[in-house]
């Protein structure tokens, strides 16, 4: 029998994470110092609102049987939007499977993205090279290594670009993560390791993944580690921008741990109330990243009621488009079953295709 979780104690050190926005939206620094213009500040809000609505729509589509399964990002909008927004066009993102908000920032069409979850396509119907946003990675943590290799490749090309990889707190228990950190440090790969510590790996709390905070693991590999308030979009933006710049110019990796919280289930297949304590949920609901950021925009005058409702209207219109697009997406042509296994179809696959599709000579 497993020892009770309480036996482990709460040994995890949660240092004072970097933040800019207070609970009421008051900023500790002038956003202009972050290089953010007023329209950028509004864009961050717009992207978070669009992401939340798209995410809720995706969950609803799953509940209605239109998607096979979906991993909600509810509560993690600031961590994803703030980090993706801090990158430049030529930078590349490797996602895990919960970064639809980052995909939205990169201009990926949500309908195409959700075809993976609709189970009509294997990996999301979008071009990873065009959006510089990699294919959804389901084995936990493997994408950290792809990111390191990609970063090494861009460095060989002499391009001033960085590669950012998303993963969760659970992935930090995987060997891949540690091998990736070590590899990146040894080869000075221009990579940003972005951990969204949402406190839960399906039903297992962060305390069962690690005693040390995630960001401190960077020290062992020899590069900076930063803990940031993941529900503070400005702090996430600032930390990511610094890390990306360090990657591009100094070829030094950074590990960012963004403290956030999953306000939905791991995926639409589990019930989070079986493991997330009600008081913890309430506490984090009180730290809603969009509510907090809206207060900031209101207090600085960067956003007014007309802007907020325009964002809501746009998000609602987009949600309708997503719904129609997803429901309208029919099955893929049967011939595609055999496409793209190899660049050119070998003889044995041609024969198997003909057999399965009933095109044999008989």
């Amino acid at each position, binding site marked *: 029998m497993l020892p009770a979780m309480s036996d482990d104690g709460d040994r995890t050190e949660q240092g004072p994470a970097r933040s800019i926005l207070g609970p009421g939206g008051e900023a500790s620094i002038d956003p202009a110092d972050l290089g953010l213009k007023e329209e950028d500040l509004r864009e961050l809000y717009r992207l978070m609102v669009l992401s939340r609505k798209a995410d809720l729509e995706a969950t609803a589509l799953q509940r209605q049987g239109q998607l096979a399964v979906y991993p909600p990002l509810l509560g993690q909008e600031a961590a994803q939007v703030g980090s993706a927004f801090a990158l430049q066009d030529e930078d590349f993102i490797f996602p895990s499977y919960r970064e639809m908000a980052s995909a939205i920032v990169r201009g990926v069409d949500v309908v195409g993205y959700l075809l993976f979850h609709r189970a009509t396509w294997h990996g999301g119907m979008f071009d990873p090279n065009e959006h510089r946003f990699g*294919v959804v990675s389901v*084995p936990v943590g*493997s994408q950290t290594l*792809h990111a390191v290799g990609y970063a*090494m*490749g861009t460095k060989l090309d002499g391009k001033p670009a960085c590669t950012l990889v998303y993963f969760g707190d659970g992935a930090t228990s995987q060997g*891949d993560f540690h091998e990736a950190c070590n590899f990146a440090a*040894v080869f000075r790969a221009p990579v940003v390791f972005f951990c969204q510590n949402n406190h839960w790996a399906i039903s297992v709390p962060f305390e069962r993944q690690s005693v040390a905070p995630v960001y401190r693991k960077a020290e062992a590999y020899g590069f900076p580690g930063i803990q940031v308030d993941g529900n503070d979009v400005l702090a996430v933006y600032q930390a990511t921008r610094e890390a990306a710049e360090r990657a591009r110019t100094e070829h030094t990796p950074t590990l960012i741990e963004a403290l956030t919280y999953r306000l939905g289930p791991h995926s639409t297949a589990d019930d989070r109330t079986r493991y997330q304590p009600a008081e913890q949920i309430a506490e984090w609901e009180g730290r809603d990243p969009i509510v907090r950021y809206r207060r900031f925009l209101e207090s600085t005058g960067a956003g007014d009621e007309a802007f907020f409702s325009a964002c809501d209207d746009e998000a609602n219109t987009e949600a309708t488009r997503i719904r129609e697009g997803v429901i309208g997406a029919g099955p893929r042509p049967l011939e595609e079953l055999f496409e793209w296994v190899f660049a050119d179809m070998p003889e044995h696959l041609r024969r198997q295709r003909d057999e399965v599709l009933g095109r044999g000579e008989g």
Partner: protein
Amino acid sequence: MAELTYREAVAHGIAQEMRRDPSLVMLGEDVGPAGGVFTPTEGLIEEFGPVRIRDTPISEQALVGAAMGAAMTGIPVIAEIMFSDFVAVCWDMIANEIAKTRYMTNGQVSLPLVIRTANGGSARFGAQHSQSVENWAMMVPGLKVVAPSTPADVVGLLAGAVRDPDPVLFFEHKGLMGSKGEVPDGEVVDELGTARVVREGTDLTIAALALMVPRALLAAERLEGDGISAEVIDVRSLVPLDARALLDSVSKTGRFFTVEENPRLCGWGAELVSIVDEEAFWSLDGPSVRITTPHIPLPAAASLEDLALPSADRIYETVSKSVDLGSRR
């Protein structure tokens, strides 16, 4: 023509491709100044430098995962896994990621990647350094699988693998490293998915791979002394497989034998036998017979390893007995 050893041919082949394509890089453990534990990469770091010939941390999952990421940027990459047994350490990358990337991206992401590895037994390295694992790779859709038996094939098939748009597992055989053969001058490029008839014969067909090819040839010579004419086919490439070459041979000879170093269960020969059974059954004069390593971990003891791996003697005896039985019926 120059006579090279198999291990020299590896470096020769890599150098040929690195001179042709300045973007080609290689990652591996001890591939730099050491030249590889079997010295197949000797001299490369001197010519191409430590950026293109890169020693990595001892981290197979990382070096293969990073090779995949680097290949995604469009550059061709060679990753070396020191012993093929260790592909098990990075099998997630190979089987779940690399093999499926083209498929999962709707054909939009290509991985021009070659994973080279020292495969097979006969060196007394025991259970964790001697396995023939080409059948593991063959089972995964999306991977190409190549295993050369001669220095010329090493150069040509390696060049074919590097230039192939799909990920290729390239199995170099530890037991062949010191063997010699002629390699043509100039650029050598061979086509993946082509078998070669290395000995013509009329009475029976023996399909073999890598170290089993010279052993099958020895057995064929002895059979010739008994008046039995054996055709030996070097399969060379398991995926794609040159099924046509096998079927043409079997339609001529009427008997089919495989010589496999991988353990018996689900060895590659089972697939070949099933193809022959389905498509050349009416040409067969007797059952197809597989000569394999038994379904055991490989022992380190010389006497036991010699017993386990198919030897020229065992090939000869098995084929003779099977042919005798057939003629007595």
